[in-house]
Every structure is written in C-alpha cells, then in structure tokens.
C-alpha cells in the first residue's frame, strides 16, 4: 500500500508564545480531497504553509509522500496557491508562468504555459503585465501557476476568494477534474458550499486544533453549517461560514 501523501503526527507550530497549531494528527491519502474549514486565526494557513514546507514545524512529525526528510526535490510534487498570488506585477502573464516553469523544470514549457493560460481563460491577456489584472484574473493566473508543473498534491489557501460566481464555478470544475485525475487536494475556505462541492473529506480547525472531522464522507452543506455552528460557535458563523 502506498504511503499517505500527508502524514502529520502531533504536528504543531508556535510563533513565540503564540500556538498557531497544536498537536494535529492528520492522514491524507493519494486521491483524497480535503476541505479545511475554520474561523480566522484557526491555524488553516499555518497548516497549509507547513504542508508546503514554507514553515518548519516546531513540534511533531510531518511526512510528505512517505518521506521522513523534506527535501527540495519533494516540492516538485506540490502545487501551492497561497494568500498572495506569487506573481510579479512587472512581468506579463506568460513571463510569470515561463519563470515558474523554469524553476520547476517543466518540459515543453512554452506549450504547457499556453495550455494553462487557456485552462484559466487568460490566453488573450498573455502578454499583459500582471499589474494591470483584476483581482479575479490574478487569482486565475495564480491557479495556473500552481497547476503548471502538474503536481500530485495541491494546497489551496482560500482559492475561491476574489472570484465572481462564474469564476467560482469554473474553479470548481478545474478542481473536480483534478480530483478525478487522482490529484490530492487540500484546501482551506470559508465558503462551505464551494468547499464541499469539490472535496470528499472535511475537517474543522478552531484555535489551532482539529475540533471535528468528517471521516470518509462529507455531510450536505446545510448540515455542515450546523456542525460548524456547533463546533466553532455562533459568533463566527455569520462572519466566516458563508
């Protein structure tokens, strides 16, 4: 049996005296798609940064693809979409993707760049500087950058934020297709409905701890909102679980 894509044992991360994430146990297998819900400050972004190897854990063990050591080469198998787009405003859309293609050693880079621009419907804007893009266009290009090197594990931090309803549907299509192709997806979102549309597992983080997990099947969105209210508290629901 293949090792889990993500295996976190008592994983924790502190920033000085603040515990952003504490003693988290999590196993994600190849082909799983996991939605992480939780209020602001729950530790969702910290968890994703740990999984992306941007942050080093202060406690516990993290194994990615069964590897005990987080080698740089392992990052070729990970695609990350963060709060920032990781895109250079003074470069064009195509130049940004070409740059990341070179960093990740993508073969046939020019063809792949064209494919990804078409996938996120930005072919007409390929030679425009990213600085001139709207928030939604930048988010779509950031998604193309995350998918560019065909990673096995996709880490998506608030992927639906800044997108109009049509773009949200398009993103859901892309992620559902990636899931069907066997990609492993871990995403954080406040958008319960969109998250459940894409994912077959869900967890709720609160105060840096996992307070609920779905097991192997997720509830309906209306049921999930009730669970969220129960686990996180009424005060967070209006602000966070839209």
């Amino acid at each position, binding site marked *: 049996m293949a090792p889990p894509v993500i295996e976190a044992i008592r994983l924790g991360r502190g920033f000085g005296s603040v515990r952003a994430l504490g003693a988290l146990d999590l196993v994600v297998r190849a082909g799983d798609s996991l939605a992480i819900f939780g209020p602001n400050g729950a530790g969702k972004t910290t968890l994703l940064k740990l999984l*992306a*190897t941007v942050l080093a854990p202060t406690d516990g063990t993290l194994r990615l693809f069964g590897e005990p050591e987080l080698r*740089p080469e392992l*990052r070729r198998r990970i695609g*990350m979409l963060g709060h920032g787009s*990781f895109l*250079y405003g003074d470069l064009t859309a195509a130049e940004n993707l070409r740059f*990341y293609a070179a*960093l990740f050693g993508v073969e046939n880079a020019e063809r792949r760049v064209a494919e990804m621009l078409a996938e996120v419907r930005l072919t007409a804007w390929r030679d425009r500087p990213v600085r001139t893009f709207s928030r939604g266009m930048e988010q779509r290009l950031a998604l193309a950058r995350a998918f560019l090197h065909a990673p096995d594990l996709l880490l998506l931090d608030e992927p639906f934020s800044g997108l109009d309803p049509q773009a949200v549907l398009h993103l859901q299509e892309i992620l559902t297709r990636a899931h069907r192709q066997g990609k492993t997806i871990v995403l954080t979102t406040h958008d319960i409905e969109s998250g459940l549309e894409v994912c077959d597992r869900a967890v709720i983080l609160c105060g840096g701890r996992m307070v609920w997990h779905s097991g192997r099947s997720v509830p309906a969105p209306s049921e999930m909102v009730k669970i969220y209210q129960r686990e996180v508290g009424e005060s967070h629901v209006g602000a966070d679980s839209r």
Partner: protein
Amino acid sequence: MLAILAKDLRIELRTREGVSSLAVLGLLVLLVFQFAFPERPTPEAAAAALWLAFVLAGTIGAQRTFLLERENACMHGLVTAPLDPAMIFVAKMLGNVVILTVLQFLVVPLTVVFFDVAPTSRLGWLAVVCFLGNVGFSAVTTLFAAISVRIRAREVMLPLLVLPLVSPLLIAAVQASARLLGDGSAAEVSVWIQVLAAFDVIFAAAGWLLFEYVVRE
C-alpha cells in the same frame, strides 16, 4: 538559479527604477564631496566619495531586490520551488553584483573627472578592487536584506545590520582605491586586495550556508 537572476534583471531593465535611482544618489554624493573639496581634491577624498556613493546606493539597491519578492508573497513562490535556498541567495547576490557593477561604471569615471585623478596605468587593479568590494558588499547586503525586508523598520535596520559588518571591506576598499587613484603602486595594494578577497569568500560562504534559515520561517 539563472531563471531567478534573469527574472530580476528583466524586471530591472523594464522598470529601470533601481539603476536610475542609484545612479542619481551616487552622483549626488560625488557632487557634495566635490563641493566640499573644491581647491585641492586628494586621492583619499576621491576614494572616500567613491565608496560612500557605492555603499549608500548599494544598500538601497539590495533592499529593493527583496521588496520585489515581498509583493504578492513572491518569496513563498521561490521557497516552494524545488531548489536549494542557497541558489536563491546566489541568484540574488549576482543580481546585486550586476546592478552595482553598472553603478560603478557610472560612478568611477565621474570620480576620476570630478576629483582630477588619473589611475590610467593602474586601471586594471582599480577594477579588481571595485569588483572584489562589490562582491563582498553584495554578499552581506543580500543576506541581511532578506532578513530586514520582513521587519517594519527595514529602511533603518538594514544599514544598522550591514554597516558594522562591512567595515573591514570598506577600510580595505578605500585604502586600496586611494593608493590606486594617487601615486601608489600595485604592490602597495596587494595586502588590501587579499583582505577584500578573504572577506568575499567568508561572507559568500556564510550567505550560502545561512540563507535557508533566513527564508524558511
């Protein structure tokens, strides 16, 4: 590594914000020194003006390299790529060396003209001193700019962190340049060139080894 260097230079060529602002700053420093020594400019004054212009402009230039990566959290894009963080350091350092070399190509001839010094026979040695000074200074500022860019008071912190460390480099560079711009021989500057070379090796190695701990939060 080359991809990062090429990307940085492409952005610099496109915006021309870095080199042009550094050149103006370098020119201003030379002019102020020229006004301060209008009668009898000495090689020592010329060397001091040359390296002061270089340090002021170079510190700002190094900071700019990382401000570029701060926008849209681009540094995370580099850190999540499958490459050794030391290669990011090398690329950033080389980018600074290239930009500061352009600055030196502008500032050194202006120093020669403004201060009426003629290092014709020792031009090659002066180029060696400038290059070694450039490499050592870029190594230190690249490492510390990566640290200071995450701090709110980064404009204050970078010079505070860097200037004490580059003192040996500045002493060696100014001493060597003063002799080469005056009547000194190449033999007189050999010890200073050795100091510069040793400084370059130590701080380039330190940057190579420590950069991972700087960028990995």
